[in-house]
């Protein structure tokens, strides 16, 4: 059910990111600087209330680094993040605490994200204790509310259970409940369903969607699986080699991916269809570039078949807005913007 591309300009931006870089320093023998891993190399976008942005890409493209930088787990090397018009670099310790309580984080591996020695009740109480919700009645009310929302019922049965007593789908719902307990305004879901079975995936995605509608949440949905984004998000960003290379409304991208890399991702995704047996996939060989020594120019050019010699291998392509809601960082579109 892809909804039409909204005119996001009319909505309130929850998150604004400007030219964000996250570089990790690599040291030789402990103290000689050997270089930087440019995990995230210049990202800019705005996320609006009630909207989902999907970020797709393969491992090592920087999508999780982006999430962790927004969450404040990674430091910012360059650029800035604004949350509700507040620059994160100006926040003091209290400010960070308030900011972190306003964003929920849903991890990929639910079992790894839940402390095995805590009961469901304690897992849900913990964030409230840390953030100063000490009133027992209020705690109880909130626990009841989030467990109802994620459909872990009957609630009394689940409260004393430990994570290992829950199935994978139930664990992931508990992770979502924990992310929701402080009533956040934004969720970051990092591959929330990739560890789950096919029959449960849809249930979890629909649950997230229902929560989003009820609370007008802004969601960043990180995934490597292009086929789920159609059902879940308004906009898609594709990442490659630490850069956002394509930004589009979901419909626009699914109709026609512009960047050759996004087109390859599209081609590589198999729909269940017996005809696949007789056709070969046209995908580029090779591997994503090293982020310590990224190639000059477009980072995809060594694998790209549509390379323009002398341009793609020397100059980094800027964002070309081919349509109002669809941009690609690719020199192929320099005359169409």
């Amino acid at each position: 059910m892809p909804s039409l591309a909204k005119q996001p300009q009319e909505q309130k931006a929850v998150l604004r990111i400007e030219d964000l870089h996250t570089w990790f320093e690599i040291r030789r023998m402990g103290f000689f600087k050997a270089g930087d891993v440019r995990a995230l190399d210049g990202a800019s976008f705005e996320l609006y209330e009630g909207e989902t942005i999907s970020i797709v890409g393969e491992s090592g493209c920087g999508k999780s680094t982006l999430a962790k930088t927004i969450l404040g787990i990674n430091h910012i090397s360059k650029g800035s993040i604004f949350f509700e018009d507040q620059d994160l670099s100006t926040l003091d310790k209290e400010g960070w605490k308030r900011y972190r309580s306003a964003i929920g984080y849903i991890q990929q591996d639910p079992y790894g994200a839940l402390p095995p020695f805590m009961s469901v009740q304690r897992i849900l109480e913990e964030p409230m204790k840390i953030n100063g919700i000490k009133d027992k009645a209020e705690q109880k009310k909130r626990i009841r509310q989030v467990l109802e929302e994620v459909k872990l019922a009957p609630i009394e049965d689940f409260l004393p259970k430990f994570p290992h007593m829950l199935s994978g789908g139930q664990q992931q719902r508990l992770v979502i409940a924990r992310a929701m307990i402080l009533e956040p305004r934004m969720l970051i879901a990092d591959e929330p369903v990739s560890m789950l079975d096919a029959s449960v995936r849809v249930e979890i995605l629909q649950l997230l969607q229902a929560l989003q509608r009820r609370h007008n949440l802004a969601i960043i949905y990180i995934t490597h699986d292009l086929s789920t984004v159609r059902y879940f998000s308004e906009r898609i960003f594709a990442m490659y080699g630490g850069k956002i290379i394509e930004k589009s409304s979901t419909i626009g991208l699914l109709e026609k991916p512009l960047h050759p890399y996004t087109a390859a991702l599209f081609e590589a995704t198999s729909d269940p269809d017996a005809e696949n047996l007789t056709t070969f996939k046209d995908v580029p060989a090779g591997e994503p570039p090293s982020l310590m020594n990224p190639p000059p120019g477009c980072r995809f050019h060594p694998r790209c078949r549509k390379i323009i010699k002398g341009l793609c291998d020397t100059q980094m392509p800027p964002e070309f807005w081919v349509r109002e809601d669809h941009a690609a960082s690719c020199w192929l579109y320099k005359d169409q913007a």
Partner: protein
Amino acid sequence: MSDKKVMLDVQNLKLYFRTQAGPVQAVDEVSFKLKAGHTLAVVGESGCGKSSLAKAILRLLPRNISTYTGSIVFDGQDIMKYDDEKFRREIRWSKIASVPQASMNSLNPVVRIEEQLIEPLLIHERRSKQKARERVAEVFEIVGLPVDFLQRYPFELSGGMRQRAIIAMALASNPKLVVLDEPSSALDLLSQANLMNVLKRIKQQMETTFILITHDIGTASELADEIAVMYAGKMVEYASADYFYTDAHHPYSQKLMASVPTLREDKKLEFIPGQPPSLINPPTGCRFAARCDKKFAKCAVQPETTYLENGATVQCWLFDETGEVKHA
């Protein structure tokens, strides 16, 4: 298609594991036939017994086995009658090779790729080192890796390359049947598509028979001639891929198909409420009945295998021999 001989004929295969709580019925009365040169994709959710089925065919069993019965006729020989030594010498790796789950990460990091790949040839086929090296170089080319990569160490190869090296290792002894357990699920999308291209080419050129174990129904369609759906230790449906992807019969298969998101068309996604039953003391009737919205009185009895017209089989009381729904 029908003139091809049957490469693998499995009948009533049972594999139960012994635990303190009782036997786990990981594979229960599974029967199917696979023709030479065909690929069977075994699909199902985690814990449905698909990897156990692979292990039962290869006889790579843990120690806590309580039941291991049935017949496996491979290339005309009932290999269940072989003793372990004969099975090891004549079947495993030389005739039935396997690519276990996550095996690309089990290459020895301090030994060059070539040394590791020639080892099964030296042991199982008693080839000379020179001959083994030549053969390994041959299969390396088949899987699309440059031959000089044989001199590298595993960490110098990417995940997709290591997986291809492992597949080369399985193909080196020219096996008749190769069992692939989730060969591509740890790989990135593009490497996965490349690997599927390689396997498809091998399948067309070398006429190898494959059993592909996967949870990904979309990827399975890249390689499968036949699809087997497992649920809670039972093979609930077995059908040709053509037939399965357009007209799956078992209610579980239908729901599973409805839960797979598609990229190219918009469909209404569904999910299956509830969980699979425990395989220790599973329900006596149909194991899917508790989650099935079409269940009726008869489902309290384990359904018999129904043979449909086009060679497909389904374990569900809903259908008569023609695939028509018997009970409205």
